[in-house]
Each structure stands twice: as structure tokens, then as C-alpha cells.
């Protein structure tokens, strides 16, 4: 993806994206998944109607790619504890049943396709490994939480 776009425009578009769409997403994980989903997997190009109408398709694509890399770097630098916290917040934001979410993420591993293009393979592998661990910890915590009310109930 090598566009000869105007850097000032790309920066402006990225700022616009941060102020509007990404402002509602507190966790870098959420931003990474969202930005990854704006990419066409067949072409590797990013699309965002609103941003493209304000700037141009090419500028929007470059701005989305930059923000995606930024979010990816932030997730990569997160500790396991922070990643578990981000995962918890992300699961709550999706409104999906925790059991379904865990099953889908363990089987499909969607975080693998949410990695930006041209990233270091070892760094990407490290990120996926961290996700695997964070998911297991989150699942264990969930299991503990679901057992707590039963344990706390008085014996019959």
C-alpha cells in the first residue's frame, strides 16, 4: 500500500478519526479490532465512508492504516493484566454471552486477522500468545465469578 498522499491531509484525517469514531473506544484492543474490520481482506485497503467523503479514499485509507498500527502497538505494549482488563471491557461492549465469546475467540482466533499488514511476524506471534493467555485468565475469572453465588448460598 504505497500511496503518494499528502501527509498533512493524512494527519488531519487521522485526527478526525481519533476525535469522532475512535473517541468512543477507550481500550486500544477495541480500536484495533474496529480498525482491522475496516480493511478489505482481499485488497488490504481500508475503507471508511465518512472519512473518505471528508477527505479522499486514499487519504482515508492511509489514515485508517496509521491509526490501526498505532492501536496495534498499544495493544502489543500492554501487560497481561491490562490485556485481561481490556478484554473484559471489550466483551461487555459487544453484549455477547461470555461463553459464546470465549468459544468463538478460542476457535476462530479473530485477533490474528486484526493484525496490521507488514508487521513483524515475531511481534504478531507475541501478541497472539498474549491473547491466548489473557483469554484463559479471563475465562478462569469468569468461571470463579459464576461459582461464587453458588458457594455463597446457604446450604439447604
Amino acid at each position, binding site marked *: 500500500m504505497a500511496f503518494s498522499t499528502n501527509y498533512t491531509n493524512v494527519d488531519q484525517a487521522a485526527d478526525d478519526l481519533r476525535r469522532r469514531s475512535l473517541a468512543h473506544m477507550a481500550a486500544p484492543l477495541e480500536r484495533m479490532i474496529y480498525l482491522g474490520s475496516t480493511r478489505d481482506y482481499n485488497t488490504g485497503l481500508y475503507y471508511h465512508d465518512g472519512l473518505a467523503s471528508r477527505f479522499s479514499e486514499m487519504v482515508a485509507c492511509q489514515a485508517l492504516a496509521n491509526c490501526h498500527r498505532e492501536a496495534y502497538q498499544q495493544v*502489543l*505494549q500492554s*501487560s*497481561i*493484566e491490562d490485556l*485481561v482488563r481490556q478484554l473484559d471491557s471489550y466483551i461487555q461492549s459487544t453484549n455477547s454471552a461470555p461463553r459464546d465469546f470465549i468459544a468463538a475467540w478460542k476457535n476462530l482466533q479473530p485477533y490474528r486477522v486484526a493484525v496490521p499488514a507488514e508487521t*513483524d511476524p*515475531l*511481534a504478531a*506471534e*507475541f501478541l497472539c*500468545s498474549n491473547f*491466548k*493467555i489473557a483469554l*484463559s*485468565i479471563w475465562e*478462569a*475469572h469468569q468461571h470463579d465469578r459464576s461459582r461464587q453465588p453458588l458457594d455463597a448460598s446457604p446450604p439447604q
Partner: protein
Amino acid sequence: MIQLTFSLLVGFALLVILYFFVRGGKVSAEGSAQQLREARQTLDSLQFSLLPNDLVHRIFAKEDLEYVRRAAPSQVQSLFLSERKDISLAWVRRVRGAILGLMRFHRGHARLYAQLNLSTELLLAFNFVRLLTVCRLLEIALYVRGPYAAPGMVRTVAVAAGKVCTISEKSLVFLKANQIDPLRNDPSRHGASV
């Protein structure tokens, strides 16, 4: 008298050989622009193949181990240690591979430059050997005792790999991108030098 004449003839012959050797070296030192460009690209890709310091720090961060020990059941702790072991072994193998590549590259392309500094070359050779040895020892330590076995050695490898890259770059300063291809002269690309 015969001995003196013989010695003088041998000395003269050696001088002639040395003259042609030096002259021949100068001719090959010029190198083609294409060769220099390729050499620069190889050096860039080798430097890029080393992970940034903050990511290496993240891989070996003790806080993750402490958190997992505190907050996760034993099977997740085992999963964590096994995953970190795989990643740390992959990292040390990559550093070793990059150093070997840099060494081969250096041997292959240093001949393009006629004014190599002997002390820099010796220092570089010493650092290559030392780093390769430490990498092998670290690999064994990580394999046998796990990812948190030798934090001191991890630091040594990370610092030494960065040093070798810097020395190598200084030694091969003639490959500087601005002398070959101004479009590729972007210092931010060198942020990944362990």
C-alpha cells in the same frame, strides 16, 4: 653478497606483489552503484529484523509472571510459561540469525570499501564472536530453565546486538543511504535496533 642480492630480489618481488594487490583492491573498492544499493538494503533489513528494545522488555517483563502467578490457576500458569518460552527462544534465535547474517554481509560487502579501519574491524569481529556465544548460552538457559532464567543475559544480548549494529553501521558508513539513494534515507527506520 649472493645472499644480499637474493634478499633484495625477494624484497622487490614482494613490493611488486603488494603494489598490484593494493591497486587491485582499489579497483574492486569502487563497486557498482547497484552493489552498494543492494548492500544498503541488506543492512537495513538486518537491522529491521531485530526487535525494538521496548518489545524485548515486554517479552521478558517480570510483572506478567507475577500477575499470572497471582491471578491465574496452575494450568494457565503452565500455558503462560510455555508460551513465553517459545517466544523467547524464537527471539534469541532471531538475534543469532540476524548477527550471523550481519557477519556474512559484512564479510561480503566490506571489500567494496578500501579504507576499512583495522581496529574497528577487530572490535567488530570480537563482538560478533562474543554475541554469538552469549546467544547460544542464552538459548540453552531459556530451553532448560524457562523464559525468566537469565534476565542478565537477555540484557547483555540486547545491548550487545545494538552495539554490533552501531559499530557495523559506522564501519560501513560508505553505504549511507544519502550517498546512494536519497529516498531511502529515513532515520526513523532504524528504531528497531534492539
